[in-house]
């Protein structure tokens, strides 16, 4: 499928969702669009609905209200396999019940292309090797997944998503609990993928890196979209202090580098709020 820049990857209109056991709406009146080739970061406090919104956008949950379109077609009209061939999705957690090697893990990304019976062919092996190299886990390919460090695990999981050869990535907190170098290497990888035309939707708690790497931020608050736009327009002291319930100061990235001037958020001491 040939995509033009700024085609609409996702469009969600007035989504509403409540978990069967939930006591409030997890997502309420959420409207947003994601264009192709864009990096969009979902930000907001814990429990603000970031993971739920991702689940709704990839069809893992059906909204109670509103509707979602993927590539201009209603999400409900897509089968799970059709979605998996176009969107590489990374859940927040995965706990393997039995050991797998990194290569086996990445090879799982070919499932949507293989189905139940077809044997993996040359294309599949190439996709797997390319993904291993892209995420720099080719040297770990025969290691057991559970023996990897946190950063290596996330890179291996990202490699699986890339092995799907998708048009878009939807990643739920791909950089949670990573050190600086591991986290930066993931963001750099995502920027490189976006430069090649891939759409990236991710959730994160790192507002400062989101401000530097994402084209747009969507700030969620209690399941609603509190702000949506460029990092400069979303990361405002008043909005953030309200949404997070904590005083913050927004400064400019001092540089050097291409991100100089990007808004950077510093949480303040609670008594220093003016």
């Amino acid at each position: 499928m040939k995509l033009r820049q700024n085609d609409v990857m996702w469009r969600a209109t007035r989504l509403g969702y409540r978990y069967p056991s939930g006591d409030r709406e997890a997502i309420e009146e959420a409207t947003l669009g994601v264009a192709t080739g864009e990096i969009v970061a979902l930000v907001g406090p814990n429990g603000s609905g970031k993971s739920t919104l991702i689940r709704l956008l990839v069809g893992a949950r059906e909204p109670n209200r509103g509707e979602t379109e993927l590539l201009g077609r209603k999400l409900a009209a897509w089968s799970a396999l059709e979605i998996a061939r176009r969107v590489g999705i990374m859940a927040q957690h995965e706990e393997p019940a039995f050991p797998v090697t990194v290569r086996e893990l990445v090879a799982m990304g070919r499932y949507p292309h293989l189905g139940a019976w077809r044997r993996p062919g040359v294309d599949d092996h190439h996709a797997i090797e390319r993904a291993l190299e892209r995420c720099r886990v080719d040297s770990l390919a025969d290691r057991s997944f559970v023996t990897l460090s946190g950063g290596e695990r996330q890179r291996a999981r990202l490699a699986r998503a890339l092995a799907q050869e998708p048009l878009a990535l939807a990643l739920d907190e791909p950089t949670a609990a990573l050190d600086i170098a591991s986290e930066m290497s993931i963001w750099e990888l995502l920027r490189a993928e976006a430069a090649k035309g891939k759409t990236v939707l991710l959730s994160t708690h790192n507002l400062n890196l989101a401000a530097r790497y994402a084209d747009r931020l969507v700030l969620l608050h209690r399941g609603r979209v509190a702000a949506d736009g460029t990092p400069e327009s979303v990361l405002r002291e008043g909005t953030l202090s309200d949404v997070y319930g904590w005083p913050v100061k927004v400064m400019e990235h001092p540089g050097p580098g291409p991100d100089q001037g990007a808004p950077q958020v510093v949480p303040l001491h609670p008594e220093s709020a003016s």
Partner: protein
Amino acid sequence: MSRGVVLAALVLAVAGAIAVSLRFGAVGLGWSGVWEGLSGDGDPIAVAITRDLRLPRAVLAALVGGALGLAGATFQALLRNPLADPYVLGVSGGAAVGAVVAIGAGWAGAAAWSLPVSALTGAALAIALVLRIATNVERRLDVRVLLLSGVVAGTFFNACILLALSFQEAEAFRAAVFWMMGGLGGASWQLVWMMGLALGGASIVLLGLSRSFDLIAHGEETAGFLGVPVQRVRLLAYLIASLLTAGAVVAAGGIGFVGLFVPHTVRLLWGGGHRFLLPATLLVGAAFLPLADTLARVITAPGELPLGVITAFVGVPFFVLVLRRQTRQAPA
């Protein structure tokens, strides 16, 4: 060794195990006796022993062993739990209640077919009951609830069995206990056909699901994100593996341990995804049980030891050996 070579070697191992099972027993035949018996132009007694007694028993042992291995591997993937075995969800308990009722009420004495039918009915009721408990309001099958409801149902069936047994005469009591311990004494070509069809059908379906098992065992949400219809796969795998287990229990009673250690042995020795694991567990189970049954027949010949005792006595040390070797190799 490539996976294909391993599978081919295992097929030969199954054939070898069946051959050994034909050769040894209360009556010594010798290899020439086995050959003459099979080809039908030897001593009529040898012909009767090989064709009518040992062959159906050996083939049934292979089928039951294969079924237990396959069902065990399936339950472990489905429940994402290495402790799962074919009996963990109460299927054998339900079948045993059926069997004990049939024996206690005297139906089993009156008509031979009533015992398997009654056991199968009990197993089917157990499957339906556990499924009903485990399906939640959203009509989703939650594996934690499934595991719990299976264990609870199994405990309940055990209580039912004990209650039923406490009212039995000594003769029926003994018959019921022996049935529950498991054994292949009741082998017949009818049972071979039943088990063969069940195992053949189940293998095709489960092999078709094997790639999804890899993903589900790895993580349910991730499997769903990769396009696996998790709910459908889970329900189908549960039903197929349960029916297969029910068939094995009806054919040979509750033979313990095979369904637990065979999948783990295959995993430890060769690793690999379910596309290899499922056929390999089937074959290892099919090679193991005829050998165990031969031991059960030979050790105290002409008497017979309970097969479940042999599977544990032989299986446990072997499994411990494999486990120790592997954990020493890879401390992580």
